[in-house]
């Protein structure tokens, strides 16, 4: 269980995290989503006691991270920027961490096996590929068999097989009742792994919702594609109902603001023939971008500067 309560973090003038409040519950995978520079890594560093919040409190399993008697057993974490001395072997890196808690060598060998690094465990980490470094980071996170697992961009640098592996690993950890919190800037990745989403943009909370709810909301705003030999007549009818209509090509319209059902009824009333009526599933990626895009716009208007601001998507 991770509880973030009214947390802000300022680095000089820059506000990295702004009055953030959310909880991460055990037993499910919670995704932490936001564009690059949204404050995900900062928030994770605040949870892990690496940075001190300017205001607000963070509790892990009811305790401030610094007060944990055995932090590696409570929380296992992997940060995006690899926190590993490149001159040391993977085995010695894990051994040194294990020794701080009296974790036996056999557990070190166990996690090395678990992440599939047996063959390179005695090699210097400096020679590792991005994917191997990522696996070593996961091994370090799992070393203490922690109740809470925090991973920053775990899929980075992994090949498809590796992504599949980590997805199942995380789901397994959550099924065992652990708290799993992972960040990503890729919505599609999250949709396949997470049960719950915490979305932030420019340091502020945008959404705290289940993935199912997020998908439902995204779909309800989806456009509908209509093909009709009487497309121009249908267009007039639909525009009259405050729908937005785009002509894609001769006889093909894309409609937003109305469901497929409503369009069908309107066409029937107006005695217009329809040859195709397809609700377009908005991609999760687009839903995510429009969500965070709005937040960027809001913040830019609030005069907080606009570095990392993304162009706001135009309405369809």
């Amino acid at each position, binding site marked *: 269980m991770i509880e973030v309560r009214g947390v802000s973090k300022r680095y000089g003038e820059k506000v990295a995290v702004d009055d953030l409040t959310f909880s991460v519950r055990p037993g499910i995978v919670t995704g932490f989503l936001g564009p690059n520079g949204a404050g995900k890594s900062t928030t994770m560093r605040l949870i892990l006691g690496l940075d001190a919040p300017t205001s607000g409190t963070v509790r892990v399993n009811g305790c401030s991270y610094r007060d944990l008697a055995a932090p590696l057993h409570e929380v296992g974490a992997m940060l995006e920027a690899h926190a590993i001395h490149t001159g*040391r072997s993977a085995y010695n890196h894990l051994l040194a961490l294990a020794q701080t808690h009296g974790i036996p060598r056999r557990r070190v060998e166990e996690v090395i096996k678990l992440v599939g690094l047996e063959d390179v465990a005695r090699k210097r980490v400096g020679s590792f590929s991005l994917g191997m470094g990522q696996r070593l980071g996961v091994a370090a996170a799992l070393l203490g068999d922690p109740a809470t697992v925090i991973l920053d961009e775990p899929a980075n640098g992994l090949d498809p097989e590796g992504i599949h592996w980590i997805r199942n690993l995380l789901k397994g950890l959550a099924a065992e009742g652990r708290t799993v919190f992972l960040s990503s800037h890729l919505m599609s990745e999250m949709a396949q792994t997470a049960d719950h989403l915490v979305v932030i943009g420019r340091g502020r909370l945008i959404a705290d919702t289940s993935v199912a709810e997020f998908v439902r909301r995204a779909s309800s705003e989806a456009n509908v594609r209509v093909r009709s030999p009487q497309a121009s007549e249908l267009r007039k009818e639909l525009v009259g109902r405050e729908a937005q209509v785009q002509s894609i090509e001769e006889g093909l319209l894309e409609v937003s603001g109305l469901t497929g059902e409503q369009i069908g009824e309107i066409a029937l009333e107006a005695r217009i023939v329809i040859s195709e009526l397809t609700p377009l599933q908005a991609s999760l990626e687009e839903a995510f971008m429009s969500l965070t895009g709005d937040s960027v716009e809001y913040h830019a208007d609030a005069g907080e500067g606009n570095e990392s601001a993304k162009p706001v998507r135009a309405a369809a």
Partner: protein
Amino acid sequence: MSAAKTLPAAAAPERRVFAGRLTQARVLRSEWTKLWSLRSTRWSLLFAVIAMAGLGVLIAAVSMSRWSHLSPGDRASFDSIDRSLGGYHLAQLAIGVLGVLVISGEYSTGMIRSSLMAVPRRLPVLWAKIAVFALVTFVLMLASALVAFFAAQAILTEHHVNVTLGHPHALRTLVGTVLFMTVTGILCVALGTIIRSTAGAIATFAGLLFVLPGIVDILPSEIGNSINPYLPSSAGGAIAKAIADPHTLSPWGGFALYCAYTIVLLALAAYLLVRRDA
């Protein structure tokens, strides 16, 4: 997207029971592993041992072969103890650089974040680094100094200028040399913690111990002579010299001052380590 996920209602995870808690003794074990598992450590220490054990012997050998060319004054002032332990000037450089690297290497690679996540109260990491590094430095340099002393004295028998460990100042100078280097190592760990960048901390170390004396040297002598005893290098170096130079503190007085400088830097390092974002 996995539909219809069943949530295990607060099912306690099947937890392996490891020994568990974080202790200072365990952090010491961890820092011992960290120190010896790096190539840079082994090379630096090897260099320090060779310099400490070998240079004094070399100086003794050269002195003996050139003995007939030395002026009577040089012969009279020939200090057999200092000659045999002269390697510490070079060994100290390696010890200082390694002392900085013990912590700055963690900052440059990002390892410090792993270390501090494992030990979130942070100070146990600093104490453990210092204890391990000071112990290793003391033991290795003591052994090297003994080798240097006895080997050099054996060579110095040629012209009967050798001394024994029972000679006045001999034991104090030998142990003092090792203590000076050990405290220098600790001072450099503190510098590395404060400055965090390897280059910056090594430059500061070299500036304090090797450059500052040169600058004071070229000041008008009445100013220079009043400042000189209190320089870190002269204060700490007093204990590593058999016969005191003029304008220096007493061996143990100087060493106490050097320790005081180190403690001040260490306190600052501890404060910053706890207060700063990692």
